[in-house]
């Protein structure tokens, strides 16, 4: 830990007091933390919260990523993954393609399948229901986390259904959890610049509220380091915190550093290492009602993700295979880490590795057999 006197000298003694007594930080506090020149002091404060919540446990998951299609009508400027229908490099998987991918890895002890795609102009809800049922059939015990709030709203529009009806149908077909993607930064100003065709922030939060009310847990993300201000990051965190007060449906928050390569965001270079660590720390400190903060190694790089475990993060995500979205934007991490490599990173940082499932329950051996 950093001596208490340091916080006084940084003018953070009030914040230090709030954190140690569990009092909620306001947006002004968040701004002071972001602007604090002492990176380690901010990290140590977040670490204190992390130790209180999770001790020295650091989680990881053995999972499989499936992207069913990169065809997307949204055209978000920060995305290097999207293609128009029929454009070279575009792809879409059929139900049997998805099944084949699941079968390919039946021998691996996977507990979670993470499946997302673009907002495809033609794929129908019944196809997605069929995909979920097929996965469930081939691998009955695996947890299925699929479709961002943005995709859910897109399906609803295509089908002329409400988002709640879409969620109900997907839930009936086997959907257990929503990933946190598509949140980007909620600020209408930033969305107007970068992703004007995407579901807006209120819509994203509304879908999540509906999902949580139906008993579908979810994650939440924030894509940062492009055109947003620090205030807009904090408003994003605050919006998540308010919804969480209401629903308690968010399991994990995932700050995603923007990867600038192969995108169309002019002048943006992505956040620096220090900015990433500070954002993780501030997220841990602001989000007093979300249990877990993820250092997603695919986006951070393995080295910085490990350091982030000392800045408020308690999860490294998983042994991702076939990650496409981050890598197409120039993320230079490997495609996967073995369980051994993940556990080693965690141990060498001074923590105890625990394998989890998508709900952050310690994985049981039996789950591996499905």
């Amino acid at each position: 830990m950093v001596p208490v006197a340091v916080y006084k000298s940084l003018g953070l003694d009030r914040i230090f007091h709030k954190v140690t007594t569990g009092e909620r930080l306001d947006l002004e506090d968040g701004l002071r933390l972001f602007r604090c020149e002492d990176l380690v002091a901010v990290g140590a404060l977040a670490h204190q919260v992390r130790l209180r919540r999770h001790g020295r446990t650091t989680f990881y998951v053995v999972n499989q990523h499936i992207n069913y299609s990169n065809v997307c009508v949204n055209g978000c400027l920060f995305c290097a993954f999207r293609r128009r229908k029929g454009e070279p490099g575009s792809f879409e998987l059929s139900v049997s393609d998805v099944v084949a991918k699941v079968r390919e890895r039946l021998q691996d002890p996977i507990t979670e399948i993470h499946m997302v795609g673009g907002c495809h102009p033609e794929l129908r809800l019944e196809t997605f229901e069929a995909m979920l049922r097929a996965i469930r059939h081939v691998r009955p015990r695996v947890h299925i986390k699929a479709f961002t709030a943005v995709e859910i709203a897109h399906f609803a529009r295509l089908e002329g259904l409400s988002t709640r009806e879409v969620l109900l149908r997907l839930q009936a077909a086997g959907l257990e959890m929503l990933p946190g993607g598509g949140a980007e930064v909620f600020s209408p100003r930033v969305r107007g610049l970068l992703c004007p065709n995407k579901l807006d922030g209120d819509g994203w939060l509304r879908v999540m509220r509906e999902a949580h009310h139906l008993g579908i847990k979810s994650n939440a993300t924030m894509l940062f380091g492009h055109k947003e201000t620090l205030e807009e990051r904090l408003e994003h965190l605050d919006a998540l915190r308010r919804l969480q007060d209401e629903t308690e449906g968010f399991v994990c928050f995932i700050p995603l550093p923007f990867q600038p390569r192969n995108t169309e965001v002019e002048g943006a270079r992505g956040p620096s290492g220090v900015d990433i660590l500070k954002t993780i720390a501030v997220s841990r400190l602001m989000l007093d009602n979300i249990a877990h903060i993820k250092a997603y190694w695919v986006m951070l790089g393995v080295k910085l993700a490990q350091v982030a475990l000392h800045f408020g993060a308690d999860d490294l995500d998983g042994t991702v295979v076939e990650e496409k979205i981050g890598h197409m934007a120039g993320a230079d991490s490997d495609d996967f880490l073995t369980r051994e490599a993940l556990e080693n990173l965690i141990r060498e940082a001074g923590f105890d590795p625990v394998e989890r499932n998508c709900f952050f329950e310690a994985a049981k051996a039996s789950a591996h057999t499905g």
Partner: protein
Amino acid sequence: MGWGHTMGEGQEILFDEILQEGRRLSRDEARRIYREADFHWLGYAAHTIRRRMHPENVVTYVVDRNINYSNICVCGCRFCAFFRPPGHPEGYVLEKSVLARKIEETLALGGTQILLQGGHHPDLPLSFYEDMLRFIKDRYPVHIHAFSPPEIVFFARREGLDTASVIARLKQAGLDSIPGGGAEILVDAVRRRVSPNKCSAGEWLGVMEEAHRQGLRTTATMMFGHEESLEDRLAHLFAIRDLQDRTGGFTAFIPWTFQPGHTAIERRPETAVSYLRLLAVSRLVLDNFDNIQASWVTMGPKVAQTALFFGANDFGSTMIEENVVAAAGVHFRLSLEEIRRIIEDAGFVPKQRTMAYEWIDGS
């Protein structure tokens, strides 16, 4: 119960003495801190010392190029992916014209120095190196930072001279300073395992002592994360601290992690957290070294930037060219502009420096 976990009374006293009054750490205290202090305390303590030594909030860098005049080497160190044995089809010795072009490119990019190193070439006489230095000095206004201690020991052995004479002749021919490479871990038991044909720890230190005596400044490095113990790392730090007490000739300490790709040592690379811990401990132990350098070449830009809060006050070189780490399969690349931005984004003022760590005006 660990250091910094509780900040008990005894620790508070030690903490005040070391951080406020600058009292030097004993080997036992250093060991305790390295083993037990928590990560944030280490960063905090190292950064406190770094700010006391460099209150001006500057992070320096040098614009230079690593030129490897040859990769032919009879040393055969197990950690090295760069060398080729004599007779190997990929072995080379740079032509003077190539050397000249590389230096001209460096100067055109605002460079002030070249780092010139090679292997232990069995056939090249000392006059070859003297000639190379004179060739450069006659033509270009460039600082020559060249020949690590193992090369100098090798030249001496080959010529039947003592190292003092070799250093004097190279200095006479234009050598300006000596890089701290080849230190690896300055413990002979480790060196016998990983680099059995390379100069001993005593010889490495002897070359540096002699160079300092002759007025040449040098750096000191440490390559860790291969087959050494924590105790070996501490022995290394204390060996260079002792020498620095006698000579004051070291400008900087540069630790980096062993990169196992394409080498004869199989192990996982040292992790980022472990790197930052060692960096912080070295800032605390080496109270007579002005500068500690972050290694973006091995750690990447993001962790190297973080290292500026764990004791480092220098971002190293722009490395217009780098071959040795690249040979182990690690390819980070940064432009001058990117290096300046990384320093600024961390809240510091970037300043170009010389090998002697003097700021260059207008940078």
